[in-house]
């Protein structure tokens, strides 16, 4: 088990290297002087000099990359041009806001997706199954940011029972979480359905039925337990996907999370912020997938760890 975790951890290194390389290349490939991109166009000569020295910008590109790596490992992403504060401070403020939305959306997608998938599989081919399948097709076809706008229109503008924006209270996370979670629910219900269908055809289910167990016990005790395994993997993937998807919903609902900082950073050419947010967001997604992989390895005795 330990060796599996170590192997899996080592496997994330190339991904992290490529991620940091892309973010590093951002400065090299963007038209303009990298120093000015980092310091801002109205930077004083002293600041330009300091940033050149700090980031090693007077050295060859590969040395710049290593000093860039060295800095981000220490959590130093530089100073935001537009906000004039260390990017790491912004990360600390915005990360919980993004995680709150992503986890709430994951919760929503599970409480909709798992039961929908089970019912769909148990009543395979029925009207309920057809409706659930169409629902999940609709779920992946609706842009989640627009679903958010619709929810806002209905519950905040018309009925005025939930707030349109902000963060901090439960009421403020409900609408964006539903908007984001619906697409996740579509994905999870599909996986749950096909996994459940597959499990229900296994020999041990036939044995359980032959023993004379009630259909309820066969489905929930023998079927569901085994069918849930692939859903754990897809939950990790979903969480990664939801973290990335929260970018648009943070803009819709004016939540000052990492996605909002990232998009505003791109539009205002605040490169230190863009770099910092991208790296932390990618890191979050990688960790989510890693945790899911480890969970599934622990839950499934058939996986060999060596």
């Amino acid at each position, binding site marked *: 088990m330990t060796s599996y975790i170590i192997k899996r951890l080592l496997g994330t290194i190339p991904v992290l290297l490529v991620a940091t390389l892309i*973010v590093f290349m*951002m400065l090299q490939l963007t038209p303009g002087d990298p120093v000015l991109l980092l310091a801002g166009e109205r930077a004083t000569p002293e600041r330009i000099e300091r940033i050149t020295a700090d980031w090693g910008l007077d050295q060859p590109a590969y040395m710049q990359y290593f000093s860039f790596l060295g800095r981000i490992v220490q959590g130093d992403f530089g100073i935001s041009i537009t906000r004039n504060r260390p990017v790491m401070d912004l990360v600390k403020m915005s990360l919980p806001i993004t995680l709150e939305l992503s986890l709430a959306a994951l919760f929503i997608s599970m409480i909709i997706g798992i039961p929908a998938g089970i019912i769909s599989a148990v009543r395979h081919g029925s009207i309920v199954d057809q409706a659930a399948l169409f629902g999940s097709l609709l779920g*992946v076809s609706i*842009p989640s940011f*627009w679903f958010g706008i619709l929810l806002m*229109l209905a519950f905040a503008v018309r009925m005025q029972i939930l707030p349109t924006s902000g963060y901090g209270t439960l009421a403020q996370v409900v609408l964006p979480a539903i908007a984001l979670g619906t697409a996740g629910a579509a994905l999870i219900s599909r996986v749950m359905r096909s996994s459940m269908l597959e499990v229900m055809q296994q020999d041990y289910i036939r044995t359980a039925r032959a023993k004379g167990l009630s259909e309820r016990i066969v489905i929930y005790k023998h079927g569901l337990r085994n069918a849930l395994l692939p859903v754990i993997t897809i939950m990790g993937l979903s969480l990664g996907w939801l973290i990335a998807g929260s970018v648009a919903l943070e803009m819709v609902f004016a939540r000052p999370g990492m996605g909002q900082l990232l998009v505003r950073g791109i539009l205002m050419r605040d490169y230190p912020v863009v770099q910092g947010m991208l790296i932390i967001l990618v890191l979050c997604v990688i960790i989510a997938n890693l945790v899911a992989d480890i969970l599934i390895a622990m839950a499934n005795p058939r996986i060999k760890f060596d």
Partner: protein
Amino acid sequence: MAINDSFWQIFSRRKSAYIGLFIIVAYVVIALFAPWIAPHDYRAQDRTSIMEAPSAEYPLGTDRVGRCLLSRIIYGARISLTVGLVAVGIGASIGLIIGSISGYMGGWVDRVVMGLVDIVWSFPTMLLAIALTAILQPGLHSVIIALGLVTWPEYARIIRSQFLAVKQKEFVEAARSVGASDFRIIRKHLLPNSIAPIIVVATLGMATAVLVEATFSYLGLGAQPPQPSWGSILSMGKDFIYHQPLMSIAPGVAIMIMVLGFNLLGDAIRDVMDPRLKK
């Protein structure tokens, strides 16, 4: 499995395939004939009717600068379809070339390419596309290139596995024994066998591309004014959500139906080709 008579036979029995196909054809017609269908020019600003409610002159009302909302949505179909087609074209071409080389050469080339595929795949698509857009500067061209660079591994992986499966078959041996060149074998014998799964991924990829374009344009990273992208219209609509709710609804309906069309068609073709999933 190549596209053949039995494919069309099964395909023609599926209602959802027809619905999907109908939706897409309808959008293509709207996009092609936009100047004749739209009641107004999408850029025309009518200073005397700003933020107006629907009327005979402006069936869906007007926006902040007095432009016809319906006309802008009709022209918006052009942007969605163009971005989707070009992005899928770029992604499929890169994937086709890299996957072919990888599958045909095998050995260390194959291992390097598949390692790259794995790395690109471990990235969250949305974040990678945002990063590329930040490098290329916001604009539709960036969204197109970013989508192409993010989606190629899927095509590469399919084409490669098809190559590996077909490589051992007798008709390829036969072609080689009569002196066909490598390039000819790829073009004449291997590619036709890989076309069908590529069509599935490309159709579903169109759905993704339309969604991503709308999202990016909403965020201001895609289409720039005055381009009438559905995402951009929604972005302006949100500022006037209290006064002009139609501007927040109509473009989204257009996106949803188009994406649904591509998803219905893609799912139908996949089910036809993979009888295992049909049960």
